[in-house]
């Protein structure tokens, strides 16, 4: 904290806009990526819930629902790559 307090004023008059632009680009690229991924993930989750509801309504589809949807229900982000492998393996 002492180091922060004793830090000299930043010379923003000439190089400031360039430095600001570089850091803004970095933050913007990450934010754009996260936003796109969040939108797509939300859309996929809605479709997934829709599909699982439809599958539930079908008579005799309980077993296949349990097999295909178990991973989506019980696990979060971690270990989902393994789910991917399991799903692919069932093809």
């Amino acid at each position, binding site marked *: 904290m002492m*180091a*922060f307090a004793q*830090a*000299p004023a*930043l*010379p*923003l008059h*000439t*190089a*400031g806009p*360039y*430095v600001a*632009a*570089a*850091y803004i*680009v*970095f933050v913007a*690229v*990450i934010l754009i*990526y*996260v936003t796109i*991924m969040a939108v*797509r*993930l939300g859309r*996929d*989750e809605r*479709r*997934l819930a829709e*599909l*699982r509801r*439809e*599958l539930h309504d*079908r008579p005799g*589809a309980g077993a*296949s*629902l349990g097999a*295909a*949807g178990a*991973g*989506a229900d019980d696990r*979060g*982000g*971690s270990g*989902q*790559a*393994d*789910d*991917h*492998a399991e*799903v*692919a*393996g*069932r093809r």
Partner: protein
Amino acid sequence: MITISTALALVFFYAPLDAEQGFIQKIFYVHVPLAIVSLCGFVLGGVFAIGHLRTGARVWDLRSYCAIHMSLIFAVAGLITGSIWAKASWGHWWVWQEPTLVSYLIVILLFATYQPMRFSIEDPERQSRYASVFAVVAAAFVPLNFIAVRLSVAFVHPRVLTLGGGNLPGSMRFTFLVSLLGIALLFATLMKYEMAAKSARSQMRALRRTLYGEDSLVAAGRSAAPR
């Protein structure tokens, strides 16, 4: 987030101003870690692709795909921040005579063809196998390219990090390492996030197949992502 916040605080309030470049040198703390992490990510994609070729497990293909995808995003950010630094320092956005810049652009363009290549192959088995072979070859190109650039004689791009320990004073080196760690952790987090998203999509496809049959997948269209 904590590491990146700490890195930003160190960059602007702890690291001293560079005697030669002044305040412009602060771009170094975001540009260089982005470039390093993106290049390492490309190599990591190749390593994961070797795992896929050895085991045939789709999860390695997914990891390779996500590593290359994230590396491309980081590389584009590194390219833009480097270009901003070049404009501020050299007065030009881009210098074609500079081997570091051009070689980095070649690596990015090389990996930019990875997704279109995947998209052009319909059969999932062939798609993943060809993509893995491409990722291994392209990843091998990254260190070769790096060494070739280092051996080149005439360059104007600064060489701050060298095998001999570099020219950074202690406070700058510490700040740089924290920035590098922060961006590497960000890469790992976003890659995990993307893998989770791809996994959810894969499960959705499995459910769709169960519900509607194979035709529904054909109707959904082809994808560059691992299936």
